[in-house]
């Protein structure tokens, strides 16, 4: 038997394997260049009290989850009940960034406060990113996006799209516990 006979078959199986892997990958999930890099610094007004600011410096030495969302974001609405539930578990504090696009003239601050009043507020603190510059610094493109940041202010994990039970239980909780040690 010709020993070269099986080469096309092997190549074909390899090709099929690549295509199958490709089918199960989500093209919307773009790997972030920010993983294991220092979280971009920010100083932004708080959502509920515009005169007070909140900065990334205030979070030095703490492990926290930074969640970018907006009242206009439907996926955030889906995610919200889980966040409210998880915030109560005290595994890791959740901080919210209300992402307001520069060209969006609607009153996002009021809409966001109403959103939290209606659906519950999981955030230890919520800040208001008018114009979205901080959100751009974090490379946010598909809200909700969440960043797990360690005590040194390094981004350790990023979730694009809503946090699911699977992501929370199997990724965020173990990693947060490890980072808190």
């Amino acid at each position: 038997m010709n020993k070269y006979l099986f080469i096309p078959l092997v190549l074909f199986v390899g090709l099929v394997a690549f295509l199958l892997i490709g089918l199960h990958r989500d093209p919307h999930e773009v790997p972030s260049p920010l993983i294991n890099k220092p979280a971009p610094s920010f100083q932004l007004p708080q959502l509920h009290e515009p005169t007070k600011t909140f900065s990334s410096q205030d979070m030095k030495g703490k492990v926290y989850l930074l969640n970018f969302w907006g009242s206009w974001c439907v996926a955030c609405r889906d995610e919200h009940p889980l966040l409210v539930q998880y915030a109560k578990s005290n595994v890791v504090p959740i901080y919210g960034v209300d992402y307001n696009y520069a060209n969006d003239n609607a009153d996002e601050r009021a809409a966001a406060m109403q959103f939290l009043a209606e659906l519950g507020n999981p955030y230890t603190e919520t800040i208001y990113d008018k114009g979205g510059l901080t959100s751009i610094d974090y490379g946010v493109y598909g809200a909700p996006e969440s960043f797990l940041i360690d005590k040194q202010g390094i981004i350790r994990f990023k979730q694009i799209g809503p946090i699911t039970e699977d992501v929370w239980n199997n990724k965020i909780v173990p990693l947060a516990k490890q980072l808190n040690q």
Partner: protein
Amino acid sequence: MRGMLQRAIRLTWHAHLARELTDGTAVPLKIAIVLLIAVGLSFLSGAVIAKEAQPNEDPQIEQRMKNLTEQLRCLVCQNETLADSHADLAEDLRKQIREQMKAGKTDKEIIAYLTDRYGDFVLYKPPVKTTTYLLWFGPFVLLGGGTVVLYRYLSRRRKMIQEKPLSAEERRQAAEILRSV
């Protein structure tokens, strides 16, 4: 008017993204497209979706903007360039790019600003570096390898053909066959 339209489009789009990211169903895209067209048509009668007419802007900067953003991918609608996209993020990013150009930043610096945040994925033309060598040079390696294999196969086949001159008897038989035809 335009703000309302954008909000409607964004809501529809995020509804689609939300479904896709949470349960992976791709079907809602059709619904999303139909909704988008319906919403678009209902508004179009009054207001044409203007492509950010900026009559007061420096035409030189606008030209540079156009040239640069045509090489960049909009992360929200991944098959659109940053120049063409109507996504809010794309509009915010164009605004950023315009401001940075006015501040005297070079195209290189602006591209670095974007890739630092969103990764090389924003570039339609991936940079040549160690992780992309396979992408850039793989096809040439395949072509070279194929040529070598083909050359060796053909030369081996040529060796297998041994030309033997016909014997006198064979010559006589051949002539007989030719005559009988």
